[in-house]
């Protein structure tokens, strides 16, 4: 089933308290795991997977682009950073 993936991130210039909290935790882990010691920052965003019956044709993609800008993101606080089509909903990385 074709799946349209929309990725949304908080605007780069805004404070991202969620990312900051995760970065803080990674920083603490970095004290015992040297491989993590050079993590410089974390930002947390959102990924939407929209499954489509039939084809993800141009019209559908245009409608989803519109949806991404108006509903899935709020342009005051977020940016849509990626929209792409994949064949199936995502599964775990092997």
């Amino acid at each position, binding site marked *: 089933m074709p799946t349209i993936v929309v990725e949304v991130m*908080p605007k780069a210039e*805004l*404070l991202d*308290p*969620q990312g900051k909290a995760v970065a803080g935790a990674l920083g603490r882990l970095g004290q015992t795991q040297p491989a993590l010691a050079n993590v410089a920052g974390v930002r947390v965003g959102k990924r939407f997977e929209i499954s489509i019956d039939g084809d993800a044709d141009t019209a559908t993609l245009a409608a989803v682009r519109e949806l991404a800008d108006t*509903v899935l993101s*709020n342009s*005051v*606080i977020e940016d849509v950073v990626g929209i792409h089509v994949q064949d199936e909903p995502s599964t775990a990385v092997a």
Partner: protein
Amino acid sequence: MRIGVVTFPGSLDDRDAARAIRLAGADAVALWHGDHDLHGVDALVLPGGFSYGDYLRAGAIASLSPIMTEVIDAANKGMPVLGICNGFQMLTEAHLLDGGLIRNEQGRFICRDQGLRIENNSSDWTNGFEANAEIVIPLKNGEGSFIASAETLKALEGEGRIVARYLGNPNGSLNDIAGVSNTRGNVVGLMPHPEHAVEAGFGPDTAEAMASGVDGLTFFTSVITRALVGV
């Protein structure tokens, strides 16, 4: 005067808002998010809470509710609309107010009595306050940090649309902004909760007596007075 309070799935403070309206001297009319009907009310309150569990973004899904078509239409025609907390978030998501609300800078839910300065006492909801009145009402949210682009902030400041500013910034809000209005002054959004400071015994502490603060009542009497005598 009849003031509607819209209940959304996950609204928490709709009953308190209705009670505040009655204490201020108007009739409270319960409205439902799924209807396309404002039942002829003269003003509207979008109450606080966690509509749709704050999924997607706080207030985002509620701002797409059926009744919001009528709310947006009425607001654009000049009906007084007050959005409190989650209601404020809905008004920004519905583009009735500028700016947005993001997670508090310290990443924590904040619940406390909060000092505010009323900077605009000409809006439909604040005309009963003295100029630069300092008040205390409860603040309780996790995503109350007001943000806007530099350009929008400049417009808000320049046009006197900052309705209330925090006395001591609790959450990282730009320019200490606690509430804003639209250009016309009929739509106001406020992160703190006036409806929780309307009745002695249940409000914030004051120098005189415990829990006696009723500073929030003036928001509701303001809109009633303006409707009755057109001040």
